[in-house]
């Protein structure tokens, strides 16, 4: 599966102050990409386009040559991409287990009703059964981030888009998550795109892109 950004141009309010201009990028399946850049450079905005959460002013995003507009943004979010947010974005009324189960149910995953599987995957990132059945608000920031990551990774989407996914984690847990991303790309053939400003984390990716002066440059 190929994810392409074609002639992407975007600005917020003033057309003369463009965030990007005529960006063209290609992301291949089975590869782990890291996008680095200064704060405010537009990394998160790019992720929102790749995750189907927003549409650029100009240009298009294509999956195997088909525009995501044609696919439909809701269907694209449901079937093609799983997103990990910097602010976790868990459902606060639910437990860790229910958060993961909800995501699996929405995307129509075959594991949606597999309780043991969900608990096992949570345990892999240090969320034991007791914590899995706690309301997410009663978990620490790091634990919440791990729940959010498991939620995104268990979904059978071919693209994983992560925004500062390791930002709230200690070095050890951060390494575990990056290992997981690499595993997803290399062993499961997914396209993993990680937004980060941690150069160490970025160095683990197959390809690094630097967003600077409105353009993306390979590092």
């Amino acid at each position, binding site marked *: 599966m190929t994810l392409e950004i074609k002639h992407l141009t975007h600005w917020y309010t003033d057309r003369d102050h463009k965030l990007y201009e005529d960006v063209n990028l290609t992301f291949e399946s089975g590869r782990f990409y890291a996008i680095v850049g200064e704060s405010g450079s537009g990394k998160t905005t790019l992720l929102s386009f790749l995750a189907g959460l927003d549409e650029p002013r100009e240009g298009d995003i294509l999956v195997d040559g088909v525009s995501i507009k044609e696919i439909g943004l809701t269907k694209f*979010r449901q079937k093609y991409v799983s997103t990990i*947010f910097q602010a976790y974005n868990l459902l606060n009324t639910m437990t860790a287990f229910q958060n993961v189960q909800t995501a699996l149910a929405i995307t129509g995953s075959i594991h*949606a009703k597999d309780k043991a599987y969900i608990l096992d995957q949570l345990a892999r990132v240090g969320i034991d059964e007791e914590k899995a059945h706690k309301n997410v608000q009663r978990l620490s920031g790091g634990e919440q981030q791990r729940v959010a990551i498991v939620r995104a990774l268990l979904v059978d989407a071919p693209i994983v888009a992560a925004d500062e996914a390791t930002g709230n984690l200690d070095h050890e847990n951060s390494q575990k998550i990056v290992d997981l991303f690499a595993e997803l790309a290399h062993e499961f053939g997914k396209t993993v795109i990680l937004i980060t400003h941690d150069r160490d984390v970025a160095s683990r990716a197959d390809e690094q892109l630097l967003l600077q002066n409105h353009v993306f440059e390979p590092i």
Partner: protein
Amino acid sequence: MNFVKRAGITLWARKGRSLLLVLTSTVILVFVMAGLIIQNAALTAANNAANAVGSTVSLSANREKMFEQMKASQSSASSTSNSETKPTAITMPTATVKQVKKIAALANVSSYNITNNASVNANSFKAVTTTTTSNAMGGGPMGGENNSGDIQVNGVSLTAATSSFTDGSAKITSGRGIKASDQGTNNVVIESELASANKVKVGQTITVKTTADDAKTVKLTVVGIYKVKTATDGFQRNDPSNTIYGSYTLANTINGTENVASNVTFTMAEPAKTTAFVKAAKKYIDTDKLTLTSDASQYKTAAANMKNVAAFASKIVWLVSIAGILILGLIIILITRERRREIGVLVALGESKPKVVAQLFTELLAILIVALGIATAAGNGVSGVIGKQLVQQQTTQQMQSANGGLPGGGAGQNGGPGGGQKPSGNMGGGPMGTRGGMTKTAELQTAMTPVAVAELGGVAFLIAVLSVSGAAFSILRMRPKQILQAD
């Protein structure tokens, strides 16, 4: 996990908020329920009142037309002759028994009563005299004034169907009343005062003389004695004790007529169909000579009270429903704003916006179902209290209106001429006796019915749909990135 399960999880996780919503919804639904119960009860009471009070249709001479004809003949007589104009005597038209039977065979007639009056003079006994009536005002019913006797014979089909007996102003104290089997006989029922003054008992015979020029003596057999409760009011020209009840055929015999029915009262099985009956019955009569008058005013008054209550209850339902929609709608919009992030996450995960709206709707519906249960349990009691208050208010208004409109306070309604009026020859009078008294206000039996619960369920569903609509509009316009970035 579908949206229904998510709704359940959310409701359970936010128990406090759910409870408050249940309480708010319960208050709204209790008032809607009370309104619906009162409305249904009032409409039922209106129908019951109508059926209980009943409706009658009277067949009698068309006096209006007769007077017009009389005036016309008088004016033509005065224009053609200079001689002294004499009062024109007119004979009031009557229906035939054959016509009456045809009309009685129409649908919706539960019973009918023929009344023919005749005036006679006491022969073997003495009429009761009342001193206060000796100088009473004249000017009784027109026609036949010269033929008046001191005894009035009220010919009827059944005394039991006569208004004096049905409203309790007259009551059989000895023997029996006049029945259909008395047709063609000289059997009579006399008043107790007349009986005791002349020492007449049941089974004895009395004689009367007709008032015609060639007066004949008629022998009457007393089969019953009745007592009249209504006192003379001083304006009556004869004592009510001088009224004798017999079969209408007896009145015909005395008047020298055959198969005549001066007045007929048809009692309707369904008061609401009175107008249709009148329309159908008019085909059997000459409307220039005879008229059919419906007496549905009593039932209309009783029904009107309840219909007013029903209309008020309907307004309660509408007002409370609209207020409920607005209150719950605003609450849901506020909750939606508070839950923007949750909605954004769901949409980012790939949930469709309509399903997010469906989740909100399911949550509110679940709350309203619980509230519906509580309202159903509490609605009966509340509606009883409110309903009683509404009926009292309505009755007070009715009484105030009646007192204000009639000097001396609420006079009896539908009081027909008759009673103890001076006999008036072959004239057809109105229904005898008074049906007076204030119309009894129908009771309001407020009771929970499956229909009321179903209606309340419908209202609750409508409230849920409309309340969520506002929030749905904002959810459908939401862009997940904006929601998630705002946090």
